[in-house]
C-alpha cells in the first residue's frame, strides 16, 4: 500500500521543487496559511467539519456559560424554595422544569448545578493529566527504579476497584474540616480523590508513548546533537506523546462528571444543600417511580454533557490518529 500512502502524503503541503524555489509572490501569502498546517491545525480543520464534534462543542459551551454566569440563564435564586410548591410538573406556571421536592425551581437548580459538576470534572482532569503525564514521562524516560516504583504504585491503585477506592477515600476525607467548610472545598476534595485514583491510566498511556517516542529517530538525532534530558523530554518526546493523553483526558472529563453523580448517589459525593446534578439525581431517585422527571431531567443534562465530552474525545482521537485517515 506504499503507493497510495505516498500519494496522499504530500497533499497537506503544496508540492515544491527544491531546485527551483517557489516564486516569491507565492511565498508571501503562504506562510500565514502554512504556519497552522500542523497536526493540530489539520485536526482542527477536520473537527470543524465533524457535526458530532461541533454539536458537542456547542452543548459544552452552553454548559460552561451556565457554570460561569448562571444568573444570565435564570433570574431565580436556587436557594429560595417553598415546600408548598413541591414537585410541580414541568411547564407549570413560571417554573420551566417544575419544582423539586423541596419546592425549589428545577431549572435554576439545573443552571446552578452545572458549576460544581464541571468544576470537579475539570479539576480532576487537570490533576490526572498533570500527575499522569509527569509520572509517565519520568518513568518512561528514566526507567529503572523510578519506573519500578511508579509501576508498583500504579498497580496498587489499579488493583483497588475505582468505586471502592473513591468511597473509602471520601468517607475518610469527609471527616476532615475540608469537607464541611464550603461547597468549594467539597468540590476540591472530591476532585483530589478522583485524581488519586485516576492518574494511573494517563501514566500508563504516557509511559507507553514515551517508551515508543524514546526510540524514534528524531530523539536520537537530538541526543546526537547533545541535547539535555530535559530538552529531549519536553521539546521532543512530550509534544509527540501528548495527543493520546488529550483524547483520554477529554473522555475522562466526561466520566468524572458521571462519577460525581454516582458518588453522590452513594452518599459520598456532594451534599445538599449544595446544588449539583448529582445531588439532584441522588436526592430524587426515591421519587423516581412517581415523579420520573425529577430524575430524568438532571440525568438528561448529565448524560448530554458526558456524551458531549466523550464524542469530542472520540472525534479528537479520529482527527489526531493518522492511521485512521
Amino acid at each position, binding site marked *: 500500500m506504499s503507493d497510495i500512502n505516498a500519494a496522499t502524503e504530500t497533499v*497537506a503541503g503544496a508540492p515544491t521543487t527544491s531546485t527551483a524555489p517557489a516564486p516569491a509572490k507565492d511565498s508571501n501569502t503562504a506562510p500565514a496559511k502554512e504556519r497552522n498546517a500542523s497536526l493540530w491545525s489539520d485536526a482542527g480543520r477536520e473537527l470543524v467539519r465533524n457535526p458530532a464534534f461541533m454539536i458537542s462543542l456547542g452543548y459544552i459551551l452552553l454548559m460552561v456559560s451556565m457554570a460561569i454566569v448562571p444568573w444570565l440563564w435564570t433570574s431565580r435564586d436556587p436557594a429560595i424554595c417553598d415546600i408548598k410548591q413541591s414537585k410541580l410538573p414541568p411547564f407549570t406556571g413560571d417554573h420551566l422544569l417544575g419544582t423539586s421536592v423541596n419546592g425549589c425551581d428545577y431549572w435554576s437548580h439545573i443552571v446552578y448545578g452545572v458549576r460544581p459538576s464541571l468544576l470537579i470534572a475539570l479539576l480532576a482532569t487537570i490533576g490526572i493529566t498533570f500527575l499522569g503525564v509527569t509520572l509517565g514521562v519520568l518513568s518512561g524516560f528514566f526507567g529503572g527504579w523510578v519506573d519500578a516504583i511508579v509501576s508498583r504504585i500504579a498497580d496498587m491503585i489499579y488493583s483497588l476497584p475505582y468505586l471502592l477506592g473513591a468511597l473509602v477515600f471520601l468517607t475518610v476525607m469527609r471527616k476532615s474540616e475540608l469537607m464541611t467548610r464550603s461547597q468549594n472545598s467539597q468540590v476540591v476534595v472530591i476532585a483530589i480523590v478522583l485524581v488519586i485514583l485516576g492518574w494511573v491510566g494517563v501514566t500508563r498511556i504516557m509511559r507507553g508513548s514515551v517508551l515508543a517516542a524514546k526510540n524514534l529517530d528524531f530523539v*536520537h538525532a*537530538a541526543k546526537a*546533537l547533545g541535547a539535555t534530558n530535559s530538552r529531549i523530554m519536553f521539546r521532543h518526546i512530550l509534544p509527540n506523546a501528548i495527543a493520546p493523553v488529550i483524547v483520554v483526558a477529554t473522555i475522562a472529563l466526561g466520566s468524572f462528571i458521571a462519577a460525581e453523580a454516582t458518588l453522590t448517589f452513594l452518599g459520598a459525593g456532594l451534599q445538599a444543600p449544595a446544588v449539583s446534578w448529582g445531588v439532584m439525581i441522588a436526592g430524587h431517585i426515591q421519587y423516581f417511580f412517581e415523579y420520573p422527571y425529577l430524575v430524568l431531567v438532571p440525568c438528561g443534562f448529565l448524560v448530554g454533557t458526558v456524551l458531549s465530552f466523550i464524542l469530542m474525545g472520540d472525534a479528537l482521537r479520529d482527527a489526531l490518529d493518522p492511521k485512521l485517515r
Partner: protein
Amino acid sequence: MSDVVLETRDLVKHFPLTRGILFKTKIGAVRAVDGINLQLHRGETLGVVGESGCGKSTLAKLLVGLEKPTSGSIVVRGQDTSKLSGEAIRRARRNIQLVMQDPYTSLNPRMTVGDIIGEPYEIHTDVAPKGDRRRRVQELLELVGLNPEHINRYPHQFSGGQRQRIGIARALALKPEIILCDEPVSALDISIQAQVMNLLDELQKEMGLSYIFIAHDLSVVRHIADRVAVMYLGKVVESGTDVQIYDQPTHPYTQALLSAVPVPDPTLRGHRDQIVLEGDVPSPANPPSGCRFRTRCWKVQDICATQEPLLQISAKSAHPSACHFAEVRDVVHATQ
C-alpha cells in the same frame, strides 16, 4: 598522519543478554561491534558496507555517542571522546554530526523546519548569538537547496528528499568536521537519491567535510566513497580504496557481496561471475569461532575454524583483508 580527524581503536560494543528472577545475571552478549579500527582523513569519504545485522548501525551510534562503547576508544582530533562525560562530551559532539536514514522519522513532526535546524544553536548556545540564529538557519536552508522562506513549515509539508536536505542542514549547523551518514539515501526514491548524493558531494568540496558513509547499497558507496570498509558480524573483513575493494576484492565475503549486486545492464546477463551464498548470517550472540564467515564460505578449511584471520595485507592482497586465503577475484565486471 596528521590529517586523521577520527580514529577508532579496537572499538567493541557488546549488548549483554541477561536472565534472572530478582537479580539479573549475564548469560552472554550480542557482539554487535567486535573490535573495529578505522581511520578517517580530512576531506575524505569512508564508506562502510555490510548486510543487515553486521553492526553498521551500532557503529554509527557509537561514533556519534548515542551508545557507550564496551571497550576501545574513539579519537576525534586526538581526543578520546569515549572517556569524556557531561559537558565535555556535548562539546565533542559538535564536531561529528549525524544524518539519519529515514527522513520521515528523523525530524520532529511537531517542530518547524526553523526550529529543527536551529535546535543545535539552542543546545550549543555559544555557537551563534540569539539574534543571528534565524539568519543562519536561512543560510543553511539555502545551502542545502531549500527555499529559506519555508522556515516556518513543518516537516510533513516536505517530500522525502527535501526532508533529507533538512536533516543535512541540521547536521551542518554546528560546522562540524565530520558527518556521519547512516544510510542517507536508502529510503529515497531513485530519482531523488542522486539529488541528495550530489548535494553531499558538493558540500564536501565546499566545506572540506569528512564523511563516514554507512550503507548497504554497494553501488551508492562506490559512487561516493574514497575508501571502503566491509563489515561482517561486527568486524571489518576488508578495507581499502574504492578501486581495491570493488575491482580487486580479496575477501570471499566481499566478493560474494559484490557479485550479488545487480548491474543495470542486461547485456551483462550471464556474463558476470556470480557467487550465490548459502544460508543466513549467523547470530551475533553466538558467532562462529575463528573466521566468522567460514560457515558460508566456499574456501573454508580447518584453519578457518581455529584461527581468526587478521585484517592485514598479505601476499595476494595489496590491501588489508581478513582471510587466510585472500586472493583477488573480479566479480563486478563482465568476465567475457
